[in-house]
């Protein structure tokens, strides 16, 4: 288990890699009390209907912790798919498919950002070729105008709007943005800047996890 307190303003991030023995790569990731398990398989065999002559076919499947998978889950899958498509080097593996499956274990309001971060670590664990890692940060705007990074479910209920941004690992450009509620442009940019700063901590966390994973690599005789 690799646990980090990113900063005093943020919730506790924790992660365990290679959680599933049969997947090519998997990660159990938690932000505060929200926990998601992501599993990646690929590049592997693909159905004839999904074969592309020049790229790998990406699929994301999200399962909620309770109940059936419905439109809300499809929205999450779509956001994650569009994020992941920008980052994975799909042209290196034509006529294959890469599947990402995410299981929500516990939800305290941060389902999207936990799932996105779990997906990134599962892809890093599987060794899928990517342009850069990506980090998601959620923030919400309270009625008094305060921006809270990584709020709990209770804080979300009281808030006016919430926004999730996914940043890439190199220049911290926005890969995708998902927003609910009413945010005027000033507040939107304030949220974006705060999330961008917080994303640096998340990316440093990824680096620490990877260094931990390879620290036991010894050369054998």
């Amino acid at each position, binding site marked *: 288990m690799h646990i980090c307190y990113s900063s005093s303003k943020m919730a506790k991030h924790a992660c365990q890699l290679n959680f599933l023995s049969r997947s090519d790569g998997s990660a159990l990731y938690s932000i505060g009390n929200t926990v998601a398990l992501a599993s990646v*398989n690929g590049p592997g065999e693909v159905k004839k209907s999904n074969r592309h002559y020049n790229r790998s076919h990406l699929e994301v499947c999200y399962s909620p912790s309770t109940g059936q998978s419905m439109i809300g889950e499809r929205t999450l899958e779509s956001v994650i798919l569009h994020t992941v498509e920008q980052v994975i080097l799909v042209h290196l593996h034509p*006529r294959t498919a890469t599947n990402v499956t995410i299981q929500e274990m516990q939800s305290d309001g941060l389902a999207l950002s936990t799932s996105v971060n779990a997906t990134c670590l599962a892809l*890093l664990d599987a060794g899928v070729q990517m342009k850069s*890692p990506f980090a998601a940060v959620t923030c919400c705007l309270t009625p008094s105008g305060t921006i809270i990074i990584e709020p709990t479910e209770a804080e979300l209920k009281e808030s006016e709007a919430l926004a999730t941004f996914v940043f890439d690992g*190199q220049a911290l450009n926005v890969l995708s943005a998902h927003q609910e509620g009413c945010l005027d442009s000033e507040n939107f940019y304030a949220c974006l800047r705060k999330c961008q700063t917080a994303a640096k901590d998340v990316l440093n966390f990824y680096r620490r996890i990877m260094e931990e994973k390879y620290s036991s690599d010894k050369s054998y005789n």
Partner: protein
Amino acid sequence: RAAKMGTNIGGVEVLRVVLPGDEVLQLNADKADISIGPGLRWQENVICATRSGLLKKTSKNLYYVDTHQKRYIPNAKEFVIGIVIKKTGNNYIIDIGASDKATISELVFENSSKKARKELKPGDLIFGQILVANKNIEPELVCIDVFNNLVGIGSLPDGGIMFTLPLHIARLIVNPKNSLLLMIAQKIKFMLLVGFNGRVWVKAQKQKEMVTIMNCLMMLEVMTLEEAKENIYRLHTSNSKNF
């Protein structure tokens, strides 16, 4: 011996842990004698990593990223263990654990000619060398080398067991002088074949010995070599008592 950053073991220097997108080198005109291997990409005068892993450099200025992976991506000249799926025409279709199935002609075996072709049934195991493999075509296997000799490759005899390991573990035990294998050999006589696709085939005299060896090697997935060496004697004695 721990491979700490900056150490040089066996001619291969371990540099650091990289994440995808990390800049590895700036390429200038005077550094033209560098080769880049798997896990690195050259874009606009900068070499970036595409996978997370250990950045390593060999004595011949070859840089590559060593990733702990389970999914096999075929490359030419690698030896793999495959399972025969079916026969189509003059070729067999083989499963090598990659995204595409490989083909092998029935003529590329030892002592195989147009009159005496090689007969294989679905489910047989073959140890072959990949002749050609890239992202655009299906891989092709051969069971003879350039000089038409059988250099210890071909269809495998019955009576062994085959299991799968992560690729970096398979690369460790390819070396026959690996200390863990030597320790096992002190107790059990066995034959071991390691494929670069992570598949390992073991044959020993008794079933329980084969299972013991399989468990010893699978332990390497979760513990280091030193810890595995300490534990194998316990595994062997417990297996002997149970059967």
